[in-house]
């Protein structure tokens, strides 16, 4: 894998991150809306917002195969109010900027409509394992839910899901949020009886995924992981199967990649919004006091491998800031990214990713 961890652009970006003064490739928050025009959108949304989701998926594949997939990194000066509570205003602005930059639209709802179409049932796959301290921020989901509403996805058509009801509840996703979206644990809805076969393993898919949603917005949390090296968009899909515990051997490789290659999972991925407001940089995936680092970042992409590859760079830099060794020095370099790349699931070569950085 080409980690390309020292490119001048990346170094500048990360230096700015570390200094707290985010360099947005010469773009201030006031011109965030113009950012998409700087390079071609990753998903070919020169088409109108009436593009169907199926068409969108095809378009995403074509562009990803022929050009660079785009990952948009949005930084806010301050996205957290205190502790792990998030500032809804800041999140709203970040969401809007990220979606516009990713989709090349002028309106956030229209941008979302590039990935999900009116009337669809949309799954919001959060990561609730570490409870409120290090789960996907519910404030982010609330803001996204509001935008989905504007894109004609009614709240009742929005389903937040994860492995356990317990994890949802303890992450702030109660039975039904006041905003109206539904919250369902896989332990409540169950799993398919038929097994999904992979080259190295087998599993059963969550019924929420197979029966209750047409497409998924993947909402991982950026975290170091004691077994796989990192957790991001790809590993978040372990929450779509019934036996992820069986998939943690050998640094989860090739299991993470193979799970993401299951058609029922792969074909429903529409968009990834990675919560890197406060990544867990050591001791993950659970939350350990003092193990999270405020970064005030959200990442946007349609390519799960690309967004994780960019996320890895951010994670490594945050670790370096703490004088923690690189993951490969700890025997924890996430090799699953390269495996996923080889399976054609996305781009694992950072040099071949169009990284757009925005500050709001």
């Amino acid at each position, binding site marked *: 894998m080409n980690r390309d961890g020292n490119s001048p652009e990346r170094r500048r970006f990360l230096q700015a991150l570390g200094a707290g003064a985010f360099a947005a490739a010469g773009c201030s928050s006031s011109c965030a809306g113009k950012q998409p025009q700087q390079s071609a959108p990753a998903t070919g949304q020169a088409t109108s917002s009436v593009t169907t989701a199926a068409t969108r998926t095809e378009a995403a594949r074509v562009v990803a195969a022929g050009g660079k997939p785009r990952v948009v990194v949005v930084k806010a000066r301050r996205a957290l109010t205190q502790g792990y509570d998030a500032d809804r205003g800041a999140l709203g602005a970040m969401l809007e900027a990220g979606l516009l930059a990713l989709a090349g639209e002028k309106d956030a709802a229209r941008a979302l409509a590039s990935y999900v179409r009116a009337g669809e049932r949309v799954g919001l796959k959060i990561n609730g*394992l*570490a*409870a409120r301290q290090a789960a996907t921020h519910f404030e982010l989901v609330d803001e996204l839910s509001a935008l989905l509403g504007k894109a004609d996805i009614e709240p009742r058509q929005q389903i937040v899901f994860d492995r356990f009801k317990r*994890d949802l509840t303890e992450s702030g996703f109660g039975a039904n949020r006041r905003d109206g979206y539904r919250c369902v644990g896989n*332990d*409540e*809805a*169950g*799993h*398919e*009886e038929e*097994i999904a*076969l992979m080259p190295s*393993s*087998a599993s*059963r898919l969550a*019924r929420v995924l197979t029966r209750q949603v047409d497409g998924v917005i993947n909402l991982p949390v950026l975290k170091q992981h*004691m*077994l796989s090296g990192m957790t991001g968009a790809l590993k978040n899909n372990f929450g779509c199967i*019934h*036996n992820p*515990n*069986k998939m*943690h*051997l050998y640094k989860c490789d090739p299991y993470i990649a193979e799970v993401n290659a299951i058609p029922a999972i792969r074909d429903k991925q529409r968009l990834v919004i990675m919560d890197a407001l406060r990544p867990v940089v050591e*001791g*993950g*995936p*659970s939350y*350990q006091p003092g193990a999270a680092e405020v970064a005030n970042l959200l990442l946007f992409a349609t390519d799960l491998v690309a967004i994780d590859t960019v996320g890895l760079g951010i994670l490594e830099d945050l670790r370096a800031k703490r004088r923690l060794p690189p993951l490969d020095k700890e025997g924890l370099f996430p090799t699953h990214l390269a495996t996923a790349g080889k399976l054609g699931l996305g781009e694992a070569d950072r040099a071949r990713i169009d990284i757009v950085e925005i500050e709001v």
Partner: protein
Amino acid sequence: MLSRRGFFLTCGGCAVAASAGSLGGRRALAGGAPRAFPARFWKKLPGKRVECQLCPKHCQVDDRERGFCGVRENRGGEYFTLVWGQPCAVHVDPIEKKPFFHFRPGSRAFSIATAGCNMECKCCQNWDISQSRPEDVDFHFMPPDEVVAMAKGYGACVTFTYSEPIVFLEYCIDTAKAAHKAGVAATMVTGGSGEAAPMQEVLEHLDAIKVDLKGFDEDYYRRLCKGELKPVLKTLEVIARSGVWLELVHLCIPGQNDGEKEIRAMCRWVKGHLGRDVPLHFTRFHPEYQMKNVPPTPNATLIRCREIGMAEGLRFVYTGNVPGLSGEDTICPSCGKTVVARRGFELEGMHIKNGRCEFCGFGIPGVWS
């Protein structure tokens, strides 16, 4: 969920079905919440992590996560078993089904299993339960005393089987203790991938154990079972030293673990490390789970494996899963006469008295009464 009475009433006869795949009907995979009981055989690690010491995987488990087996969970830095007293499969089988051929032939085995396994064999016939978590299957609360009482009622021994008893070892130990207290025998069917200390503890309370020696090649264990061979061999040596009656099964999968060289090496190891009197069963593979594309084992393979075993000096080598195929009977090593005649799980003739061949008086190793 059924009431306990209803649960058993639905089973009828001697088949006390609980759930799961071939053993009964599995309901939609959204079970109730299992009860958590403090687990044993683990140690604390920094940051609310734990390390399980039940099996060689030594899973380091983060808070709120589970180990590979899926049935042991870290809750705030304490480790819990979610399957103690909660079997998902309960059945009365002939002891020959386990298979035990030298342990009380013709008797019954009150067989229980919980969800979970510390391996994932691509050929698993009970994958419905072994590869499931407790909440994925129907289960019932059945503490040790109740297991023993039911086994006694059927005149059966208690057998921990179907999935992997090592992952519910605390339950096995407590139940086996209760069984012995009540004068009921306790047996186990396992893949043998356990750490020495917990295995030694459970062996103190067992009367017989059958181990699946799935292959004799590390790559095979890793590739097809998500396991390791070496710890299994260690366990076998622990068992051999314990004096608990031991039988071995080798499931012959065409093209995977049935090569002559491997079979011969395995037989030599068994003879050298466990002794020539340990029964070794070569059983027929049936396409299942992730190996539906592999054909069943040809009879000729089983016969050839048996011949290799005998040629290597093992005295009790059997074929299995093919009723009527030669190799099911126990032959007296001294006079060459059939001392136990079998067809499948059926006992057709018994000529062992007080542990000796009725024809020549030769002592036949095993537990015969």
